[in-house]
């Protein structure tokens, strides 16, 4: 597999605009990464991904109507190559189990920073290379 040309695009999905704002700042401050946009709901994220799939989606667990677990599954289904990371403002211990938190690791929102983003991408790329 060849290196994808251009920066790694990141979509953030959260119903809290302040966090989207912070996420954008982190993405733009990370070399090699580009902000693909913010979505305030699962429906909006799916529509945005359909127009042009980002490389990474940061998905908040707690959202009204479609929650993060459901959105993750739907993004996986429509874009198998996309890296979808669940994030939450709650402690991972206190997250609901029923949606499948055990299948998808959940990160604390406050751990979002350039180094974490790069690490996440590197691990994912490594895993997908191994899978090949």
């Amino acid at each position, binding site marked *: 597999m060849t290196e994808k040309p251009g920066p790694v695009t990141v979509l953030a999905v959260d119903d*809290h605009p*302040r*966090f989207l*704002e*912070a*996420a954008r*700042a*982190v993405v733009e*401050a990370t070399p090699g990464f580009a902000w693909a946009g913010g979505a305030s709901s699962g429906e909006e994220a799916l529509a945005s991904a359909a127009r042009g799939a980002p490389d990474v989606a940061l998905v908040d667990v*707690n959202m009204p109507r479609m929650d993060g677990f459901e959105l993750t599954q739907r993004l996986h289904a429509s874009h198998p190559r996309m890296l979808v990371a669940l994030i939450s*403002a*709650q*402690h991972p*211990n*206190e*997250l*609901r*189990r*029923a949606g499948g938190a055990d299948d998808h690791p959940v990160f604390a*929102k*406050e751990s*979002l*920073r*350039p180094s974490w983003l790069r690490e996440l991408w590197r691990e994912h790329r490594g895993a997908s290379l191994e899978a090949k």
Partner: protein
Amino acid sequence: MSNRKLTALGVLGLALCAISLAVARADPVPTARADHTTISVLTIAALLGVGLYAWNRGGESRFGQVLFATGICWFFVTLSNSDSSLLYSVARIAGWVFEVLLAYALLSYPSGRLESRSARRVIVAGALLIALLYVPTIPLTGQYPLPAPFTSCTAHCPQNFFLVGSEPAFLPDLVKPLRDVLAIAIYLGAVLVLAGRLRRAGHNQRRTLTPVLGAAVLRFAAAIVYVALRRAGANGGVSEVAVLVALLSVPATALGFLVGLVQWRVYSAAALGRLTTGLGETADPRELRELLASSLDEPALELFHSDPPGPRAGGNPRWLDSAGAAVAAPSLPPGTCLREAAAESGSRVALVCEEGFGERPEFLDSVCACALSGLERQRLDAALNSSLADVAASRKRLVGAADSARQKIERDLHDGAQQQLVALRVKLELAREALEQESAGGAEMVAGLGSEVEEIIDEVRSLARGIYPALLASDGLGEALRAAGQRSPVPVGVEADGVGRLPSETESAVYFCCLEALQNVAKHAAGATRVEIELSTDGELRFAVGDDGCGFDAGQAGRGSGITGMRDRVAAVGGELWVESAAGTGTRVRGRVPLG
């Protein structure tokens, strides 16, 4: 009747017996029948005694007075055992009056009143016969008819004390046969009246009427046979047996009255006893009617009731039958009688039962009072239950409202302060990285700020969790308790197999109870190494939190308020809670909450 009066009358009766005996002994008639003297003296005691027994009871006191008067009259009859012409003559006249009085007692049992027109006719006819064909013959009679059943003399009896001149011939030729025939006719009439009454009586009345009416028939039959024999055969035609039967028929009636009175007393006491015992268990008027019917052994009995008039009600009360159907007025089928009673509250009952009970108004009043109190109790029970239900529902609503307020606060914290702090934390990290090249000191300071913000984030999280754990709302009791257990200093095992989602007020009540128990373990259960939380559902939710710590003396629950709060929480959703502990054996908090 007061005890003093009862005693006085009793003493009077004994005195009369003694006088009667003394008279018979002092002046014995020649050719006396000694056994007859004894029987007639004992008969005074029997009539007066049974009369007093009835007199002393509310419902039969008038009858008791009649019987007592009959006994007094009988005392005068027994004076015929004297050889004195005056006493003998008075006694023979008293014998006529006695016949009417005894017939009156028999026909008026048990009320002391002649209830039917035919009974009144018989008594009036008897009184007229005595007044017209017996009393006027007193000055004309030389010798009273012999043999006589109530006198001990058989021949050579004393002459009539009141004779003026000599006995005219028309007396034995005309008057005496005529009045014997009329007496027999009147006795027959009395028997017919009694037979008709027995035939009409319900099975409960029959029970107490039969001994009386049996004795009455014996009495009248003996009198008829006696008069008939005397008329047919003159002096020699009446056997000693017929005389004895006629005499014994008098104490026999006293005995019949006694048996009847006692049987009624036994029946009414048993009926009222069954009624009062069962009263507390009746839930509605239908069950009350069934209790009345079985207590009184009157299957057809019907009970009507009307509730106390409401604030807007006016006019006639609305009657309901025992099935709850509204009727204009209590229906009265043929052969039944009605008795009504009203309580102070204004609620009323109407009892419809077999006609014969009409002779026992005091008994029906007791039954009605029982029925009223039963209905009043049912009404109060219903009112109490409905207010209890109201209180329980309102408590549940309060708890529910408090729970949703807590959930809302938790969400507000999560969506507001927590999100902003998280965004701030992320931006501070960016700021630190940006500063790193230019000012190592500045970057370090920002890193410190970042750590502080993280601490605040943790605090807000635990605050929100304490208010209402998000996991409880999203995943239910088992997961929320498991997460709480992970934060406990003592290892916690949670066993919640098969416990799905439950009503949110139940989940939160049990969650906070278990949380309180966990906190108690951490605070008080020294030496505890393990806590087990068990949840199970089986029509109700059962929960238990047990530790292996030092325990405490459950008798002196020193940590009262915590346990009281737990009890209140569980009680608000209709459940119960127990704390079991003893020094050295650990503590176990158990509870149950009904579901559905």
